[in-house]
């Protein structure tokens, strides 16, 4: 009976979302002409809280079905079994399509509740408008859930045992990566709702610009954190030692990230100087539309990827229709209200506004390069024009060159003044540090042959030194240093750390796929890898082979790494790499297949500075959060 209650809770949540969109709208339209219109407009929050409560009930009941092994629920039977450890039973709730969509809806309601509770500086009626838009988005997702993806669907005959949760997902990474990523994805609905409500009200004013920025920053922070976690998870769980594969689904999360990056910068200009309003509106619409596009790519079945869910054209069609309504409707609204976005605020070619505009254009161009590389092969395939593969060579050739000037402009922007600046002053301000960067690059050029590494050293030094100098200047002026400013510095340094780590690990990483016999030794970068053999072992719901590789540096033992090759009860194989991590390098070993005569195939990787990639991501996310919690956004309201 509990699954039926869960299903019914979802239906009540849907009705609450529908009313959340309709009743306050009626109140706002009829205004004082109807008795009770005020009460109707004020229903948006109670209805939202109700929606959130029932979604929470549904989610808890689905989790309960997993924990108690209720295999009469089809979703549970297909994604869990009695041998699965409890922690993975709980995380299996979002391990496949239906449950992850429920999590998505719950997170959307959570964001909406956060807006309703923490928007105390926003006038109530503005919040009501925003909640109407968020309610409409909830209606779309709840309809999708109930019509095509009911997680509580029952089996007429319950199997005695469920199927295996994808072993890739039986990992700590699954517990946190999807919720964090969804927080980012769904969070993009908030700036979208802010924009749409402003367009509906016909008031693209300072209130919208000021208060949508912290929400955008928080969503961007979660998106950054989610993508970073995904990269880290792929690195240690997939057994390939890679951290980014330009997988279409990775790209689907990266595209909204690039747009969100542009949006937080564009918002800062719009907020302070009243410029770029058109651009900001379009970026907010594009950011959320790309989130929906990502959902379509993952859930329609047109992609084959570690991320994609089962093929289902019906689901794909639903999201495509939803995407069309959202994009078409919001662009239509944008066109209708375009006259309200005129701005007389002028700025010179050499100004902070120009630098941020260049930065924005480059970020959007980078997004378009990823967009084309991701969708073009799918388009060709769907039109039966042949299959082509677009991978790392394309993205390295197109995406990277766009990002180099964007990185250079990023550092310069901080030195430019608003509205108008003088070239001489900027040169004076930057000349010393530019000289230091040039010297470092020259030394690198003389001592290193690898051009990519030299470029990475130049860019990292350029960003870090300029950021630190900016901080030093601000400290010297004894002016107020805002958290927003510190957030910017931290995020920019995060970019440098990421860029340096990614380049070094790509260029200087060593990968060896080799055959090793027991007690055989292989040397990699001064480390000796001695293969000590393989033993059988068993876990809670799998058996397998566990290898032992002793790693020595000189005569000093660094670690004994024990990579595993697991065979799950359902017959699914799984590689568990063994890693000896450190901030400067990772030693990574994955066990392959037995090759006879006691020999095994092994993958041995030496990955210098690979951790810097995720450290960089973490710094960007922290920077975004610092900026979001700036004092300006926490200022008490005057009454």
């Amino acid at each position: 009976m509990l699954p039926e209650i869960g299903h019914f809770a979802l239906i009540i949540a849907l009705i609450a979302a529908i009313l959340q969109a309709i009743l306050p709208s009626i109140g706002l339209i009829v205004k004082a002409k109807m008795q009770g219109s005020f009460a109707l407009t004020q229903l948006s929050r109670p209805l939202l809280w109700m929606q959130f409560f029932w979604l929470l009930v549904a989610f808890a009941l689905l989790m309960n079905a997993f924990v108690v092994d209720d295999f009469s629920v089809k979703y549970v039977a297909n994604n869990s079994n009695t041998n699965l450890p409890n922690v993975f039973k709980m995380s299996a709730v979002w391990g496949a399509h239906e449950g992850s969509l429920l999590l998505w809806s719950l997170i959307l309601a959570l964001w909406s509740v956060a807006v309703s509770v923490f928007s105390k500086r926003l006038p109530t009626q503005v919040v009501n408008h925003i909640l109407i838009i968020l309610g409409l988005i909830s209606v779309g997702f709840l309809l999708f859930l109930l019509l095509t993806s009911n997680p509580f669907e029952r089996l007429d005959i319950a199997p005695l045992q469920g199927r295996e949760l994808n072993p890739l997902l039986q990992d700590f990474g699954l517990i946190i990566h999807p919720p964090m990523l969804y927080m980012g994805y769904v969070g993009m609905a908030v700036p979208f709702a802010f924009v749409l409500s402003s367009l509906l009200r016909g008031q693209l004013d300072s209130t919208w610009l000021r208060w949508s920025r912290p929400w955008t920053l928080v969503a961007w922070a979660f998106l950054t954190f989610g993508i970073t976690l995904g990269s880290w998870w792929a690195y240690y769980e997939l057994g390939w030692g890679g951290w980014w594969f330009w997988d279409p689904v990775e790209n689907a999360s990266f595209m909204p990230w690039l747009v969100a990056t542009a949006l937080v910068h564009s918002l800062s200009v719009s907020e302070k100087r009243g410029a770029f309003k058109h651009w900001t509106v379009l970026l907010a619409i594009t950011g959320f539309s790309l989130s929906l596009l990502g959902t379509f790519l993952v859930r329609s079945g047109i992609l084959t990827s570690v991320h994609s869910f089962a093929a289902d054209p019906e689901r794909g069609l639903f999201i495509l229709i939803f995407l069309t309504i959202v994009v078409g409707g919001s662009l239509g609204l944008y066109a209708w209200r375009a006259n309200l976005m005129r701005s007389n605020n002028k700025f010179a070619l050499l100004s902070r506004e120009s630098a941020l505009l260049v930065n924005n254009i480059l970020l959007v161009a980078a997004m378009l390069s990823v967009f084309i590389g991701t969708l073009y092969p799918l388009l060709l395939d769907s039109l039966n024009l042949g299959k082509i593969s677009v991978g790392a060579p394309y993205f390295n050739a197109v995406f990277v060159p766009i990002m180099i000037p964007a990185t250079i402009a990023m550092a310069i922007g901080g030195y430019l003044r608003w509205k108008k600046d003088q070239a001489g002053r900027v040169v004076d301000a930057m000349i010393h540090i530019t000289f230091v960067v040039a010297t470092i690059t020259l030394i690198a050029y003389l001592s290193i042959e690898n051009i990519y590494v030299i470029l990475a050293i130049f860019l990292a030094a350029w960003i870090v030194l300029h950021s630190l100098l900016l901080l030093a200047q601000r400290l010297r002026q004894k002016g107020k240093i805002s958290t927003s400013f510190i957030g910017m510095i931290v995020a920019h340094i995060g970019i440098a750390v990421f860029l340096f780590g990614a380049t070094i690990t790509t260029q200087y990483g060593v990968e060896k796929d080799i055959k090793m016999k027991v007690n055989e030794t292989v040397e990699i970068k001064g480390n000796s890898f001695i293969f000590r053999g393989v033993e059988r072992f068993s876990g809670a719901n799998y058996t397998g082979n566990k290898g032992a590789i002793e790693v020595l540096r000189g005569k000093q033992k660094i670690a004994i790494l024990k990579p595993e090759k697991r065979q799950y009860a359902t017959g699914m194989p799984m590689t568990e790499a063994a890693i000896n991590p450190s901030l400067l390098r990772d030693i990574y070993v994955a066990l392959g297949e037995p090759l006879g005569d006691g020999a095994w195939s092994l993958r041995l990787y030496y990955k210098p500075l690979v951790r810097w990639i995720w450290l960089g991501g973490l710094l960007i996310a922290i920077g975004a959060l610092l900026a979001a919690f700036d004092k300006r956004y926490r200022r008490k309201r005057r009454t």
Partner: protein
Amino acid sequence: MSLYIWMVIMLLASVLWLIWFLYNPLKIDALDLEKSNIELGRQKQAELEQDLQDGLIDQSVFAQAKDEIAQVLAVEIGQTTTYPQQQKSPTIGLILLVAAFFLIAPLATYQLLTSNENAPVAAEKTPTLTQRIADINQRLAQTPNDAKAWRLLGFALFESNKIDESLQAYQRSYQLDAKNAQMLTEYASTLAISQNNQFTGRVSTLVREALEIDKNLPDALYLAGWVAINAQQFELAQKLWKKAILLSKNKADKAVLQQILGELLQLQNAKTPKPTDAKKSLTAHQVTIKVALPQRLLKPEFEEHYLLIYIKAAQGRPMPIAIQKIRLKDFSGVVVLTDDDSIIPSRKLSQTSSVIAVARLSKSGSAMRQASDIEALSPVINVADNPIVNLELK
């Protein structure tokens, strides 16, 4: 507590919540949009001055920037619209309307979404028949009045060749819910098999009842055709099967129906409409199975054992298509399986192609294979060749 009581509690709680906030709307903040924009305009002015102190804006454009902030504020104030203010509570009519909608809409949606769940949804990994029967029995132990479960049990037992037990399960389902046309059809079909494919008596009653509930149910029309054949009403049988072909969505079923309809028409054209021969004349093929027994199985202790000789599909369900069950002491060494030995009328031996012949010696005679049974299987054979198969039980 039943599900519906829970649903009512959930709805009442939601409606009470809603009515509470309709009568006691959340208070509106003192801050309206105009005040908010004015306050933000002031803040922007202050930030601009701070920017000037920090050297983030040039003195030459400071005044211009300050003017722009003022201009923006003026435009924003001009755009401000008014919103409903606190006033009397909504009318009782409005409250009742909202409450009624909230009570009806979820129930109607639930009904709409669950009404299509009658068809069993197969798990991707199909459990074995024994597992399924055990599962259903477990379900019945908790809800003994679940007509749907009794029907599923009847079907699973039929699949396991436990015809008598299957009939009991269908009878129970019939007692609990006699208005399920599909169940009535399955019940009638199973009953007909138990009485050597005679579509008379209770079978015809059940088929009639099924058609009274759903006159367009293809399976019921198909059985009604056989009832008509039994009653020598060939024209009626022809009509019923033609209608069944039109209504059937299953290609395989359509093919079978077209085949038997074609043969019926041929029979009618040949003016040999002897009803009792009609079904027999559909029998076109046979499989001859010779079974060799080793000396040790010829001992008296095996005399009462059963020899099950049957044909099953080379791929798909393991259930026999045609079978003979003989005591070992009565076995002559050869068995000829024909359509008369078919288990299901709709699945005659002649209608199959690639099959496997099986000989199994069983102490219990159970249709389900036991651990102590001795079994021999043939390679894949084609029924259309009227093959002769040699099997040896070792």
